[in-house]
C-alpha cells in the first residue's frame, strides 16, 4: 500500500512537472514575443521593452524556465497584466466558488441521470426503453452545451420564469440565491455529460450480467432487480467510478463554455476573458490549476477504489 502510494505520488509529480513544462512552452515559447502580443499592434517599443523586463522575458529561455518552476514551487503563479496587477492565485481563488459549485451540481445531475438510465437500459437490453435511452444519451453527447444552454435559458428562464437568466446573484447574495443561479447551468452541463456515464454503466453491467455468478444468483430464484442491484451493480461500481472521475475532469472544460453562456463569474469565464485580453499570466495560472485539479481527481478516484471494493489492495 505504502509503496503504491509512493509510486503514485512520484508519477503525479512527474505529470505535474510535464504539465508545467507544456504550460511554459504554450505561453512563453510559442508566441515568440508574448509582451508584443499582449500589448497589441499599437504599443510602442518602449512599452514592449518595459513589459518584457517586468515579466522577465528579456532573460534567456533557460533562465525564464527555471524561474517559472521555482516560482511555481513557492505557489507564485505571477501577477495579472490587466486586473490591477493582482496575484493570479488570488484572482483564481476569488473566482473558484462558482466554478466548484457548478461542477459539483453538474456531476450530481450527471450521476443522477446517467447511472439509473444505464441500469434500466442494461436490464432491458434490446427493448424500446434500451434503444430510446441509448439514443437520447448519444443525442445529448452530440448537442453543443452552449446550444442546449441557450435553449434551456429561453424555455425555463425567459418563458417559464423558473430560473434567473444569467449571472451569480447580486454581490453579497445569500448562498441559496447564488445556487439558484447555478441550477440551470448545472442541469445543462450535467445532462450533456451524463451520456458518457449512461453508456458506460450500460456496457459494464451488460458484461457483468453474462458472468457465471449472475447465472447462479438467478438460478437460486433471486428476482431480476435484486440480481442487478445487489450483485451486478455493486461489482460495476469500480469502472463506473472511473468514468465519473473522467466526467468530473470533462466538466472542468465544459464549465468554460457554460459559464460564458450564463455569464457566471467563475474560472471558465475568467479564462475566456483573459484569452480575449491576452493576459498570459492569468491564462497560464488557470491552465496549471485546472490541470492540477484533474491530476488530483484521478488520484482521488484511484484511492476511492479502496473504499468501495474490498478486493482492491495496493
Amino acid at each position: 500500500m505504502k509503496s503504491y502510494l509512493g509510486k503514485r505520488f512520484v508519477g503525479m509529480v512527474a505529470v505535474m512537472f510535464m504539465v508545467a513544462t507544456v504550460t511554459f512552452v504554450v505561453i512563453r515559447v510559442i508566441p515568440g514575443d508574448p509582451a508584443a502580443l499582449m500589448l497589441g499592434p499599437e504599443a510602442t517599443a518602449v512599452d514592449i521593452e518595459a513589459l518584457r523586463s517586468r515579466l522577465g522575458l528579456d532573460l534567456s529561455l533557460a533562465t525564464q524556465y527555471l524561474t517559472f518552476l521555482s516560482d511555481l514551487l513557492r505557489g507564485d503563479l505571477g501577477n495579472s497584466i490587466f486586473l490591477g496587477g493582482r496575484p493570479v492565485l488570488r484572482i483564481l481563488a476569488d473566482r473558484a466558488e462558482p466554478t466548484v459549485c457548478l461542477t459539483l451540481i453538474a456531476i450530481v445531475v450527471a450521476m443522477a441521470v446517467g447511472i439509473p438510465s444505464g441500469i434500466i437500459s442494461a436490464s432491458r437490453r434490446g427493448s424500446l426503453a434500451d434503444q430510446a435511452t441509448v439514443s437520447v444519451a448519444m443525442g445529448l453527447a452530440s448537442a453543443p452545451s452552449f446550444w442546449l444552454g441557450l435553449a434551456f435559458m429561453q424555455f425555463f428562464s425567459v418563458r417559464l420564469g423558473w430560473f434567473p437568466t444569467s449571472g451569480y446573484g447580486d454581490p453579497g447574495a445569500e448562498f441559496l440565491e447564488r445556487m439558484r443561479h447555478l441550477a440551470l447551468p448545472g442541469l445543462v452541463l450535467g445532462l450533456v455529460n451524463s451520456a458518457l456515464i449512461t453508456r458506460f454503466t450500460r456496457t459494464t453491467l451488460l458484461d457483468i450480467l453474462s458472468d457465471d455468478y449472475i447465472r447462479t444468483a438467478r438460478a437460486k430464484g433471486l428476482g431480476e432487480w435484486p440480481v442487478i442491484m445487489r450483485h451486478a451493480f455493486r461489482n460495476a461500481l469500480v469502472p463506473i467510478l472511473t468514468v465519473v472521475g473522467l466526467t468530473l475532469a470533462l466538466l472542468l472544460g465544459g464549465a468554460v463554455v457554460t459559464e460564458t453562456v450564463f455569464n457566471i463569474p467563475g474560472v471558465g469565464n475568467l479564462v475566456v476573458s483573459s484569452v480575449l485580453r491576452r493576459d498570459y499570466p492569468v491564462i497560464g495560472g488557470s491552465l496549471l490549476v485546472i490541470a492540477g485539479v484533474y491530476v488530483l481527481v484521478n488520484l482521488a478516484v484511484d484511492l476511492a477504489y479502496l473504499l468501495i471494493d474490498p478486493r482492491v489492495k495496493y
Partner: protein
Amino acid sequence: MSGTEEGARGGWRAVLAVVWRRKVVTASLAILLLMAFLAVFADWVSPHSPTAIRAARRLRPPSTVNWFGTDEYGRDLFTRVILGGRTSLLIGALTVLFSCFFGTILGMIGGYFRRVDMLVNRVIDAMMAFPDILLAITLISVLRPSASSVVVALGIVYTPRVARVARASTLVVRELAFIDAARVLGVPTWRILLSHVLPNISSPLIVQGTFIYAYAILAEAGLSYLGAGVSPEIPTWGGIINAGQQYIGRAPWLMWFPGLFIAVSVFSLQLAGDALRDVMDPRLRREAS
C-alpha cells in the same frame, strides 16, 4: 495479391456489410454524405448569396423563399448554414489528419522504443490533463486566430488521444512473432514500423479518428461561439449561433438550424464510429453481424 491486401479487402467488405445491415448507420452515413455534398456544392445548391444584406428582409421566419429564414442582416440562413458546414467539416477533417499523423508517430515511437516510452507516456498524460477547449483556446490566442490556427490547436489537443491508442496497439503488435522475424531478417526499424506495425494498428486508429472528427466539430463550434475561432466574417455553425443569440426570443430559427446541423453531424459520426468499432474489434464482430 498479398495476404494483407486480401485481408484488407475482406475487412472493408465486412464493414460495408455491417453498415448496410444496420439501417441507422446507413442513414447516418447518408446524412453525413448529404452534409458534405451541401458543403462542397453550397454555391450551386442555394440561389442566395451568403453575404447579400437586405435590411427589408431581416429576421424573416422560414419560408419557401428562405428555407431556414433570414438573419439580422436579411441574409439567407440556409446558405450560411451550409457554408458554415463547409468550414466546420473541413476544419474537423484537417484536425483528424493532423492529430492522426502526429499522434500515430508519437504513439508508435512510445510503444516500440522502450527507452523513450516513459517520456512519451508522461507527455501524453500531461497533455490530456488540460481540458480540450481550454488548451485549444489558449493555443489559438498565441497562434493568432485563423482557420489554420484552429486546425493546429485542435490537432495538438487531440494528438495525445490518438497517440495513446497508437502506443497501446504498438505495445501489443511489437511482441508478435512476425515482428521478431522481420528484426532477425535485418529489416530496418523504420520499415518494420511502416510496413508491419502501422497496418496492424490502423483499425483502432480509424475508429479513434472517427470519434475525433465528432469532438473536433463540437470543439470548433464552441471556439467559434466564444469568438476565439475563425474570423467572424467566415460563416461557421458556432459563429452563427453566437450572432443569433441576442435575437433568440424573436428569431429562434437563428439558433435552431445551425445547432441541429452540429448535433446531427456529431451524432452521425458517433454512430459511424460505434459501428466501425463493432466491426473492427474481433470481440464485438460476432455481435455486430
